[in-house]
């Protein structure tokens, strides 16, 4: 299946309607004729020799390591199973260096354009005046922060850490599914997955030249230091701000603090005096210059945003506005990654960079537009409908796998508040070999590479977090919805 993004989505779908609803997915290991693709040669050999028991044994070992290390996550609304493991699939996903380089160029372009867009939105707003993006998508966006209007941020950078979700539907194209420019998580899994694979399968690494990912932590630290404000001392202090141990991603926060060798602070560890941020230490107050914050905008500063927030730091935003601290990511970046803005991304790329987007967008119908809504309403059973601000796989409808009742309920919701939704065709996500109960079988995957933007340059380690839908036929890869994870290998030759 090929998406032609330059065309009106309606035309594309009209073309699809004539064919079968669900074309066969692109299998990343095997060609349709059954032959193994080059990247997977050695792995396929190895899989052929490995018995199901041996694989199961390794899988259990991996799980044991995960549990012992305490790499768990919290699931929303599940009081009982407060700490769960994300199922880890021991069969790696393999990409060639050629594929990766193509993808990486696209990711860098995407990160650059996101920063250009945010600089413009909180600055001159040329893109709104040019009529490329409708004004109300910005002004009526919940994630838009008027406090940031005309406010320069250190080095004009807004998104230093992005986790851009990528899917494939054929050998030639990568599609961006979501730009996560607020506080994307998952990088600790990318790193831990590799650690576990190195421990469990040294022989596989002998047979492959796998490009390393462990330098991510150094890249992250270099990125954060590079964006310190001008008023910071020569040796700036970086801290990671976490909502605390009850946050679903707490493990990741502490993991990163540990690897970076910086303090993991909670709101109560910080205070602001004279528009400078300090942390409380056993030796008295210490100035903080760069905060990699893993707290949503809403909770950052009770004096400016939600007054009931106990997670934030009173006065933080005024210190930020005074230019004495860098927040990474900046405040208000959510205005660049919601799903309605996403649909304009190809035009946004052209507007700022004057070049064609290197990564494709999935065709998207904006239900806020009358014609699109009409189209979507008529074809709900074929489409995936998502909330504009939704994440984690919550609040979405997957037409082809939903029953009638669910579709009708959703139709009502959609009619009530169309602007809150977008719709996309059901993508035949690519598949990778995955260990399941009765052997090795193809399962649908996506990929979240992490893109770091510093004052000096963009850094991307070759790889990312591959998420896999473990249920046969399922397209939902979110960990909160029963998805698993895999190590992602980029072959260095």
């Amino acid at each position: 299946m090929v998406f032609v993004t330059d065309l009106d989505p309606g035309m594309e779908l009209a073309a699809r309607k004539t064919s079968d609803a669900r074309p066969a997915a692109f299998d990343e290991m095997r060609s349709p004729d059954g032959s193994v693709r080059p990247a997977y040669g050695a792995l396929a050999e190895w899989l052929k020799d490995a018995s199901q028991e041996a694989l199961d044994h390794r899988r259990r070992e991996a799980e044991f390591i995960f549990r012992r290390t305490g790499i768990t996550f919290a699931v929303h609304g599940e009081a009982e199973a407060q700490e769960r493991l994300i199922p880890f699939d021991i069969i790696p996903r393999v990409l060639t260096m050629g594929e990766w380089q193509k993808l990486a160029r696209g990711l860098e372009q995407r990160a650059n354009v996101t920063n250009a867009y945010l600089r413009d939105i909180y600055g001159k707003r040329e893109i709104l005046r040019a009529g490329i993006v409708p004004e109300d998508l910005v002004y009526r966006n919940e994630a838009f922060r008027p406090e940031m209007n005309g406010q320069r941020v250190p080095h004009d950078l807004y998104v230093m850490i992005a986790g851009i979700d990528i899917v494939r539907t054929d050998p030639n194209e990568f599609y961006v599914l979501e730009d996560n420019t607020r506080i994307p998580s998952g990088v600790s899994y990318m790193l831990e997955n590799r650690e576990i694979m190195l421990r469990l399968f040294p022989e596989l690494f002998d047979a492959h030249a796998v490009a390393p990912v462990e330098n991510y932590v150094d890249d992250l630290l270099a990125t954060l230091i590079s964006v310190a404000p001008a008023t910071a001392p020569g040796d700036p202090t970086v801290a990671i701000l976490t909502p605390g141990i009850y946050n679903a991603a707490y493990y990741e926060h502490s993991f990163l603090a540990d690897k970076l060798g910086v303090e993991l602070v909670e709101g109560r560890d910080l205070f602001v005096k004279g528009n400078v941020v300090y942390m409380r230490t056993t030796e008295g107050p210490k100035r903080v210059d760069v905060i990699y914050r893993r707290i949503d905008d809403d909770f950052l500063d009770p004096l400016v945003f939600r007054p009931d927030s106990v997670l934030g730091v009173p006065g933080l935003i005024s210190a930020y506005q005074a230019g004495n601290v860098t927040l990474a990511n900046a405040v208000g970046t959510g205005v660049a990654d919601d799903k309605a803005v996403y649909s304009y991304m190809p035009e946004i790329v052209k507007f700022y960079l004057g070049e064609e987007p290197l990564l494709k967008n999935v065709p998207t119908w904006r239900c806020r537009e009358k014609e699109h809504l009409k189209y979507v309403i008529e074809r709900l059973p074929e489409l995936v409908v998502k909330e504009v601000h939704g994440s984690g796989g919550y609040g979405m409808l997957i037409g082809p796998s939903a029953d009638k009742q669910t579709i009708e309920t959703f139709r009502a919701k959609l009619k009530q508040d169309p602007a809150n939704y977008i719709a996309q065709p059901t993508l035949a996500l690519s598949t990778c070999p995955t260990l399941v109960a009765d052997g090795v079988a193809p399962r649908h995957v996506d990929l979240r590479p992490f893109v770091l933007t510093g004052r000096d340059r963009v850094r991307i380690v070759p790889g990312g977090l591959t998420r896999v839908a473990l249920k046969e036929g399922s397209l939902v890869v979110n960990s909160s919805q029963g998805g698993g994870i895999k190590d992602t290998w980029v072959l260095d030759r």
Partner: protein
Amino acid sequence: MLSRTADNLYWLARNMERADATARILDAAQRLVAMPQATGGTTNEWESAVATAACVPAFRAKYDKVDARTVTEFLAFAPENPASIRNCFETARQNARAVRTALTGEMWDLINTAWHEMRHFDPNRTQGEELSNFIAFVKESSLRFDGSAFRTMLRNDAYCFSRLGILIERADATARILDVKYHVLLPEEAQVGGPLDYFQWVSILRSVSARTSYHWVYRDSVKPWLVADLLILNRQMPRSLASCYENLSRYLDDLAQFYGRQGTSQRLARSMVTKLSNASMQEIFQSGLHEFINRFIADNNRLGGAITEQYLV
């Protein structure tokens, strides 16, 4: 270091130490009641276990009856007892999770493992062998905690805060054992009690793991004034008040050196060290063992407060 990190390290250590102390109290009580009445087994041994663990009001609020079942349940498992062994492990793990970056992998590993294993013990089956297994598990976990901290932690401020937590808690636990049993500890000139008291003295030694040490130190049969001496003034005995304070003072001095600044807690600890090294058991008995211990408990709490004030908030 973040004050909150120091606070978590300190309380992590206190909770692990408290779990250990409570396990020893249960162990000693269990052995004492297993004696035939004629040779010292008493029925109120469970009461003194609750008193030693310093949770009488909370216990009374929950139970009418004081017996093996209610006391072990309360001290080991009860969710409403903040100092129950289960809660200590739970809190210790929360403390550890909050400061994982300040712990070594080995330390986190054992705390996490202990917490997972804790959940395999059934609160409804806590008699006889099951209880012994449980006590052994708790003691072993705290030994591993102590040992892994000793072997793997950098000797920096984090290590000092962890040691301070252990030592403050340990001093308190020893003092509380003495406080509950002070009436069986008599000065040399007093008339020595019968076999009943003998087993009480042995039980005190057992609750601080000093049954063998006693004989090495005194080369004598168990005598109450020597038991008191061992637990209060003997600096070779790791659980004695004197030893705890010698070490508290040492780690506080280390901190002062790291940070280049002295404070109230250094002063308080040093003055207690001086007081204990100038004291003799005879004087202590003369001016009242009970009063002495009560003053010590209050002073120890004051030092805990001073450490908090100076470093942890």
